[in-house]
């Protein structure tokens, strides 16, 4: 479904990604784990067109996405829930969700869009309670739910999630990962990027470990959970 091949990205003279290749099959939740500065956010920003790679390819089905403008990549079916949530603070919860459906609203019309919104509210009841509130007044956890809901409003073929746990209290993080597991059960294709390696591997089907802009280890989530190198690096356990 989403196929990334040999992606190289530089910030000026600094190389951030050194030929990353990975695949997100339809209906699967794939995670990329790695520490701060490993290149996780760079990877997602390149997929969604906010950054231009120096070489490599990103394919959604048969379509090459490299070189496309970000709004067209969204239109093609990639929704990106960015790091730090980035909800629109001056707009209401409802308006944030409406903008999530921006690419589809003309085709589907108001009625269908509101059905989509009811689905989001079913998934995140807190958002329904606060539907008229400005997004800037929500708590961090609620903003994260809104950011995920907003991305889902476009009915994406692939949902990119950039550190949904960032800056949240542990109890809220539990809630967020519970929702991700629900989305996975609904068959939504997701590429999740996380520092919380253990939590990500619990919900994912498959995982990649990225370090210094390179994929170092990959495997099923289960095999990575038991990989001594992963344990040593991310789970705070000494390598056997």
């Amino acid at each position: 479904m989403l196929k990334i091949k040999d992606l190289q990205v530089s910030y000026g003279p600094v190389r951030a990604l050194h030929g990353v290749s990975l695949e997100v099959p339809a209906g699967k939740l794939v995670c990329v784990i790695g520490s701060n500065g490993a290149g996780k956010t760079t990877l997602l920003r390149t997929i969604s067109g906010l950054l231009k790679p120096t070489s490599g390819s990103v394919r959604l089905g048969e379509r090459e996405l490299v070189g496309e403008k970000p709004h067209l990549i969204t239109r093609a079916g990639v929704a990106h829930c960015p790091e730090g949530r980035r909800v629109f603070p001056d707009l209401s919860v409802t308006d944030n969700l409406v903008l999530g459906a921006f690419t589809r609203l003309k085709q589907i019309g108001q009625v269908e869009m509101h059905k989509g919104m009811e689905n989001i509210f079913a998934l995140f009841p807190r958002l329904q309670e606060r539907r008229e509130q400005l997004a800037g007044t929500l708590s961090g956890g609620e903003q994260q739910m809104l950011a995920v809901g907003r991305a889902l409003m476009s009915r994406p073929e692939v949902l990119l999630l950039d550190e949904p746990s960032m800056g949240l209290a542990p109890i809220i993080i539990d809630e967020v990962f519970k929702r991700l597991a629900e989305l996975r059960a609904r068959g939504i294709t997701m590429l999740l990027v996380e520092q919380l390696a253990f939590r990500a591997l619990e919900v994912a089907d498959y995982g990649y470990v990225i370090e210094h802009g390179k994929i170092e280890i990959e495997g099923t989530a289960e095999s990575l959970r038991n990989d001594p190198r992963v344990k040593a690096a991310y789970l705070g356990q000494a390598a056997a």
Partner: protein
Amino acid sequence: MSAFIQLVFSGVALGMIYALIAFGYNITFSTSRTLNFSQGDFLMLGAFTALSIIGSKQSAIPIWLLGLLAAAALGAVLAVVLLEVAIRPALKTGSDVSWILATLALGIIAKNAAERIWGTDEYPMGSPFGRGYWNIGGVSIDPKEVLVVAAAAGVMIAFEVFRRKSLFGKAVTAVASDKDAASLMGINVPVVIMFSFIVSCAIAAMGGVLIGPIQIVSSTMGALLGTKAYAVSVIGGLNSGLGVIAGGLILGLSEQLTARYISTGYKDTPGFVLLILILLFRPNGLFGKATIKKV
């Protein structure tokens, strides 16, 4: 007493013109963090364009509306030129000085072009109302000033309603608060920015048609108006939405009252003193919002 009320009303009319131009500054500043420092000259070109249609005498309403529309159309065309010739190339240099100078330069070109075409003379401009005044309870009110207040308020309210209610309007707000996030929604950000410039410049050009009949049309009419409207933007707050109305009224009234009770020579002083004070003590403006970011 009635003289005082007339004075206040003139101040309000003047203030609404400032507010209208300032509103245009705010629209492009919110979406692009740039604004057009030749907005006053665009206003002047709008006034001259309309003048050639409306003429210098009282005109029929359809003719006047045609002049207003022509000015708006010219403003829209100028906006495209401004953005593609001056602002977008200047932004590539990465320096704020570039776009400021580029828009100022475009203003000088506009003024020189106007002098080539229409000369340096001053022209009176017609409107749907003649020279007469309305007498309302012993106070004589200039209907042209009523028109200014109604039209300026109408344009600003219409844009605010559009921005809050329509999908494209919400997209404008989204671009104003976060361009990357907006593009991730599938919003074509450069198109939204272009749209904001078209609205802004069309508003300025229409402002020329409103103020022409009250003041006088000349190639230099825009310079001071543009500068004062910029002061109003800063006083109200560059991201304050309708805060410019308060800013405009403060400036318009203080000018009229200073001219009447102190000296016409000092009429422009309070506005600029206020600008300096606001910049020193409230750089976000009276109604500007400090943005909250949750991490």
